[in-house]
């Protein structure tokens, strides 16, 4: 039979053991499982709860409403308006989160990566850093995030993100719904799983931008595929749009330049005339 000293020793060690194992178990388990492939639910318009174009009822200033109307008119005539995505330029924030093609979210303790075949990756730094003094602006911006354990169950469930330092031009969606050319956009997000249905993920996105009369919040929803097949999407492959100056054209099936709208003239060949002299 064990004496009292041995019993005390065992009890002490067991307590120590539980603390060590518990602490280590918490580290990997404290982040949510956002693995898999996330497909958007709904269309590619910015606010999925409303129809596209003017149906978005975007809270634009008068100046930017006029820019938007001009974009729509140009698109109706065969142009691309304010939307430059046809050049295969990355969407930028916040439009990246429309997830035209599926997303993958890789959660690591210091950084959460949002990957897509369609756009440049996002990095959301969760290592406690402050905003850097100097940042090269990027279409995806610079994102700092903070994990929140909202239900206090010892596991993070919400990622709060703020993104600054975006470059432009950017727009909200394919209709050319514009963001301000001053590129002072701030995007705030809350990303979380549906607790009742953990194969749905939400991103509550608030855009603060000088093209808007007020912050504009939309809710993006994504559905998980736990056995994904990743398909590479290469915008530049077989892209039949050609931008020359402010004009856009098409490439025909047999490789010749074509007009993209009625009455469009061919590109000015003035430099070819000079070269021939």
């Amino acid at each position, binding site marked *: 039979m064990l004496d009292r000293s*041995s019993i005390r020793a065992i009890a002490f060690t067991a307590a120590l053991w539980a603390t060590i*194992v518990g602490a280590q178990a918490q*580290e990997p388990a404290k982040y949510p499982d956002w693995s898999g492939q996330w497909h958007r639910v709904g269309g590619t318009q910015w606010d999925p709860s409303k129809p596209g174009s003017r149906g978005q009822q975007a809270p634009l200033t008068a100046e930017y409403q006029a820019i938007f109307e001009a974009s729509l008119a140009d698109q109706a005539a065969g142009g691309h308006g304010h939307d430059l995505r046809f050049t295969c330029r990355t969407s930028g924030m916040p439009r990246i989160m429309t997830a035209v093609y599926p997303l993958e979210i890789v959660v690591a303790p*210091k950084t959460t990566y949002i*990957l897509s*075949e369609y756009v440049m*990756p996002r990095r959301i730094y969760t290592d406690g850093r402050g905003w*850097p003094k100097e940042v090269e602006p990027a279409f995806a911006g610079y994102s700092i995030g903070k994990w929140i354990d909202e239900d206090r169950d010892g596991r993070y469930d919400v990622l709060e993100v703020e993104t600054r330092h975006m470059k432009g031009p950017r727009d909200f969606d394919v209709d050319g719904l514009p963001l301000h050319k001053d590129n002072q956009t701030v995007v705030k997000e809350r990303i979380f799983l549906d607790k009742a249905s953990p194969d749905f993920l939400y991103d509550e996105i608030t855009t603060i931008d000088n093209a808007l009369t007020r912050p504009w919040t939309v809710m993006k929803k994504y559905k998980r595929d736990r056995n994904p097949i990743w398909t590479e999407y290469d915008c530049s492959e077989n892209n039949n749009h050609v931008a020359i100056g402010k004009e856009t054209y098409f490439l025909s099936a047999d490789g010749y330049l074509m007009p993209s709208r009625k009455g469009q003239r061919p590109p000015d060949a003035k430099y*070819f005339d000079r*070269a021939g002299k």
Partner: protein
Amino acid sequence: MLDRGLMGTFAIMATLVTTIAVAPAQDIAKYPDWSGIWRGDHGFQWDPTKRPGLPQQAPLTPEYQKIFEDSLKGQEDGSQGNNVRFTCMPSGMPRTMTVLFQIEFVITPATTYVVFSTNNPVRRIYTDGRDWPKDDEPSFTGYSLGKWLDTDGDGKFDTLEVETRNIKGHRTYESTGLPLHEDNQTVVKERIYYDKTRDRIIAEVTTIDHALTRPWTVIKPYMREKQGVPWIDLICNENNPHVLIGKENYFLSYDGYLMPARKNQSPPDTRYFNQTKK
């Protein structure tokens, strides 16, 4: 002074604590730390130890040596030859491992992601023990399976062996247009590891391709990005002055007009514009 019974008890419990405490830590810690931003420590040529173009001494078959030399000749005249990267098409494997800017390795137990600061797609190297898929859409990046090795027996993985198949084309090794075979049967094998003597991540890349007379191995080193230098996104399609119309490449002038890329190049055929006017 402790009696023997108590000392024995402490010894047993100490061993038990050590064993249990180490086990979970081993699981997390068994992967190497390749975190942070790395930068290609090499030029744009495929084999960094040699100059680009013909000095690469690529072991090409006669057929593909001719394609290569035709590409070089075309480039002398101002065309892009066999190279299509100027259209912002992805480099594809293996060329994507030539990193002129930044690269990042994100290691998780099931997958190692390789992320590039240019517009090359993210590589996914699956290390979850899966087999080759029966039906997989070919891609420029291909499909990669990897296996972690502990080559020095210290209980920690240090080398990632990778095989990549199912790659689509058109691909070249470098901007000189050094070609891979159009049959897209390329297999790329890699050993990726950290060289602590040089503080470099090293990728030993072996290409097996029908345009080659033998497997071709090159070494690609990546150095740590300087402290304080952030990740920089380089968007190929932003301000790209190259325009491809059919098989002809042109330039865009600073003021937005089409320009010839070579001497005496004619402007593009505008036959469809003439038809529109009728």
